[in-house]
């Protein structure tokens, strides 16, 4: 397949799935004209007005309409323009969509996708348009959560989310929309689709396990490069999805490296990284040679001025520094495994 930017990958995944299954319908603000992040361009023209619906500024109605349509057997994909706006429809997402299959004893399925632009990434969007809020979604059982780190992931995970019979929240990173890469064919018939719940080792290493998601995968890789020059070999894992979580991939890496650093863009107070750290502290305790360390977005609402924003965003140097700290604080491995 061709080289695509992350935003083109989103549009292409939508097109692939809309062509494949006419139950896939889109709704959201300005989506008919291509969307403010240009992730739905050309879809109305190609698939018609019955497949791509513009909405008023009514996030509750958007999320609720997606839910109702999914119950009726469609496979809606709702755009919530900025992930911060999930707050305006949190009841629909957290109290209805996440729970209705369970509450009804399995009478209904919700094959729906909520997707939108997440994260800071140094673009100056501030506290109400620049947050990373995967942690909001992860507090709620019943939602699957995907957070692609690059164009191929954006394509494959979104396609998988659309095919999944459960509600999936896809967090696209707004600072990655311009990134470009070639799409590998991964499915039958040359389709591109990735499994949900399977992490990806993006770099192998023996000394420490670096766990990232979305934009921090790239930051971890850059830190790994920096550390390699010092002779430290970091293994970098892209979780891809938080739910389902491929904890086994993390645990098996830690079993080899004995050290774990988690890099998350959301604030650390209760970020997804805490969940990874807690799992390791419980299940990999015997493997750990050093404290489990987290590098998180600043525990503040996000500032706008570039000098302030750079101060709180996760950076290569903070990750590399954490790794050096972990290696310095290591004790000999207690087990021989």
């Amino acid at each position, binding site marked *: 397949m061709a080289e695509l930017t992350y935003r083109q990958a989103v549009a292409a995944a939508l097109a692939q799935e809309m062509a494949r299954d006419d139950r896939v319908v889109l709704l959201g603000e300005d989506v008919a004209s291509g969307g403010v992040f240009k992730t739905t361009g050309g879809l109305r023209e190609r698939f018609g007005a019955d497949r791509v619906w513009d909405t*008023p500024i009514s996030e509750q109605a958007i999320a*609720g309409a997606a839910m*109702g349509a999914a119950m*009726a057997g469609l496979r809606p994909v709702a755009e919530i323009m900025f992930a911060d706006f999930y707050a305006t429809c949190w*009841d629909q997402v957290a109290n209805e969509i996440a729970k209705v*299959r369970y509450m009804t004893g*399995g009478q209904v399925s919700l094959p729906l996708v909520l997707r939108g632009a997440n994260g800071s990434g140094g673009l100056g969007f501030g506290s109400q348009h620049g947050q990373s809020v995967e942690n909001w979604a992860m507090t709620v059982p019943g939602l699957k959560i995907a957070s692609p780190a690059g164009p191929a992931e954006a394509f494959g995970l979104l396609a998988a989310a659309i095919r999944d019979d459960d509600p999936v929240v896809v967090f696209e990173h707004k600072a990655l929309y311009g990134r470009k890469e070639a799409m590998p064919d991964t499915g039958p018939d040359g389709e591109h689709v990735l499994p949900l719940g399977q992490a990806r080792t993006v770099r192998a290493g023996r000394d420490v396990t670096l766990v990232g998601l979305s934009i921090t995968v790239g930051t971890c890789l850059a830190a790994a490069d920096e550390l390699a020059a010092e002779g430290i070999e970091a293994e970098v894992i892209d979780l891809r999805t938080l739910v389902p979580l491929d904890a086994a991939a993390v645990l098996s890496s830690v079993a080899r490296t004995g050290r774990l650093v988690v890099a998350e863009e959301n604030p650390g107070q209760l970020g997804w990284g805490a969940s990874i750290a807690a799992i390791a502290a419980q299940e990999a305790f015997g493997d750990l040679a050093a404290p489990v360390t987290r590098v998180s977005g600043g525990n503040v609402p996000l500032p706008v001025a570039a000098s302030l924003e750079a101060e709180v965003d996760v950076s290569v140097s903070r990750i590399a520094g954490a790794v050096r700290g972990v290696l310095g604080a290591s004790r000999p491995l207690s087990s021989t495994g």
Partner: protein
Amino acid sequence: MGVPDDLELFEQMCFLRHFEERADSLYRQGLIHGPVHLGLGQEAVAVGAASVLRPGDYSLGTYRGHAHALARGAPADAVLAELLGREGGICGGKGGSMHITSVEHGYYGSYAIVGAHLPVACGLAWAARIRRTGQVTVCFFGDGATNIGAFHEAVNLAAVWRLPVVFVCENNWYMEYTPIGDVIPVALPAADRAAAYGLDRIVVDGNDVAAVREVVGDAVRAARDGHGPSLVEAQTYRLKGHSAADGGAYRPAEEVARWRERDPLLRTRATLTAEGTAAGKLDEIDARIKADLAELARQVLARPAPDPAGAWTDVWSDGSWQWRN
């Protein structure tokens, strides 16, 4: 399939009445775990509206939703088992009184968060519109719900998209303990808001089942014929408290007495006898239903509690709950 006649409607209302009286008494005996909200006195809305729906049509209600589920045909034993936390509950014991759902009968759920289901109703109607199936969605909610944002967003979207949905506000004049007049700036919670969505002002006597059948019937027909949504205000009254735990003492005795006279069952009974039905026949129906429900309650109470393992199913479509490997 014809629209049911007055006698059938009477029988259905009788059934709802006795079902809920029974639920009330079971609650008082401590046999129901969790809250219960009764629609006693509001039966004509559920029955009148359901009478104009076809199989395949969608309806949705609130935590005060027993009547709406049963009126669509949800099996009474399964609903009762859900309330009583016994095997065979319609939601497997995971919903309880506030979350009755019977997809098989087109009842897409009772929703416990005020207003939350109005957007969901839009989605069901949207699917029907996209697929041109002619299915109509009817969504019931209370007067108090007209003040929440979800109401506004949903009715607005339905109007913009011309969705085949009928929003039925059951104005029982109270949101919990507060008279609705204290917390709305207009006289009528739904009817006085309809114009804001380009919709007609529709008010119906919600204690007159024939009137509900007619007015909701018109709205359903309009929706089916592609003329878009309606907002109907059905004026009614709950004869008991907000929930089975509430005595309703905040309501003036004369007010309650006045509405007792307008009890939808008495009204339909009067119509029927005026039309020539023998009062004894109606009494017989009433007594039979009451006895049947007493027997049903005995049977359901004899069932065991749901297997605890059921707590761990139905989170995901593969039946499991695991979120990680």
